[in-house]
């Protein structure tokens, strides 16, 4: 007897739920497995007094966003919009926003 559509759909949903469950299990396992590597990175940060993650090496403002220069629109010249692609993923750190800077 051929499988009914409803049963196939239920099987697909069960597979979806199973995959979501596996993602959660993978998250928990990976955390445990990556613990040593995370500790190692943390130790390097402490020893070398590092301040930022190396997500990109494109520009100072995205390589070390927490220590970057103050961002002022058009600070270099009129129409000087951010021309670095990495700047389109990372926003201005809260402490470098003009209102915060005035605290």
């Amino acid at each position, binding site marked *: 007897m051929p499988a009914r559509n409803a049963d196939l759909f239920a099987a697909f949903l069960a597979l979806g739920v199973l995959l979501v469950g596996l993602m959660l299990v*993978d998250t928990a396992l990976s955390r445990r497995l990556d613990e040593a590597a995370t500790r190692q990175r*943390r130790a390097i940060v402490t020893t070398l007094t*590092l301040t930022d993650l190396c997500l*990109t090496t494109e520009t100072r403002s995205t390589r070390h966003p927490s220590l970057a220069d103050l961002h002022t629109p058009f600070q270099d010249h009129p129409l000087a919009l951010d021309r670095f692609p990495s700047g389109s993923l990372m926003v201005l750190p*809260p402490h470098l926003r003009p209102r915060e800077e005035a605290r």
Partner: protein
Amino acid sequence: MRRALERQRHILDFTLSSLARRRGRNLALLIVYTLVVFLLASVLFLAAALKREAALVLADTPDLIVQRLTAGRQDLVPIRYVESIARIRGVQAVEPRLWGYYFDSLSGATYTLMVSAALADHPGAILIGGGVSRRSEPGEPARPLGKGDVLPFKDADGGVLPLRVQGVFPAASELVTADLVLVSATDFRRLFAFPDGQATDLVVRVRNARERATVAAKISRLHPDSRPVLRDDILRTYEAVFDWRGGVIVLVLAGALLAFVILAWDKATGLSAEERREIGILKAIGWETSDVLLMKFWEGAAVSLCAFFLGVFLAYLHVFFTSSLLFEPFLKGWSVLYPRFRLTPQVQLGQLAVLFVLTVVPYTVATIVPSWRSATIDPDTVMRR
């Protein structure tokens, strides 16, 4: 109970057959819908994993970094500031940091050069990150640098300073060390003709974490040209990363929103003539209004649940198994050195629940509402139209 379940199965059977009859249209809908969920889930997963990584790895970053501003730009800090800052109550230690950027014209890469006390007695030696070890010069076969290799640097006078690699940071640390080159203070000052008595910035250790802000305020009063950056500021930097206001994120969210508006609009403006006739026939052969609504509910739920599970699963593979292949060009930008890292998966039920509510619920509701109108009118009228 068994009877109710059987009724649902029959209606679902019919709904899926009905969807299969309009295969092309529904497949296109499923692909667009899956793409929307995939993009949203990718942003959500990547942002959460990065935030978690930053919170864990940068937990012991310096309590306070003191920079100096001249004419609105970051400038070198006089080392004499160390003494006055060290006298502030609550300050445990103050150390100058020497670091900067070096553009390697041979490979086109930019390194972060930093002085390490461990190399104080080893002038001429360097420790490099994984990204630096992978540098390559045009026309030369790519070969990773290792212990004993020599890397030539051009100093401020135009001379060449050859520095020997003493070690490479482990691959697992690339997220913080990819572009790092540790050098001795002597080599650093020679490379950049760095003036004596100056530092890039100062690291301040504060005894009591609750006093950090007070100490920062005192430093600002003592040296009005200084800018203290607190550890909390550094951590908040990564809390804000991938904020919805980021350029690409706005595009992704706007695209997703637009796609949803189109999908919802398509559904809410009413059913096609074929769909209306189908409802009329079903009612004429004895289906109740509630059966028709149930069928439409299953239709919306089937499409949106398929798109949800497919989108979430593909996003998980994308972010944690391909290192965010789609976002990589943005992070890489014009840079030559690119860190290779695999983020620890960070998926929580709460995230998935938010995504579910934002994507599945609106579409399912948008499918039922117009059906309600058609299902409540006379079947004869519907079929005659």
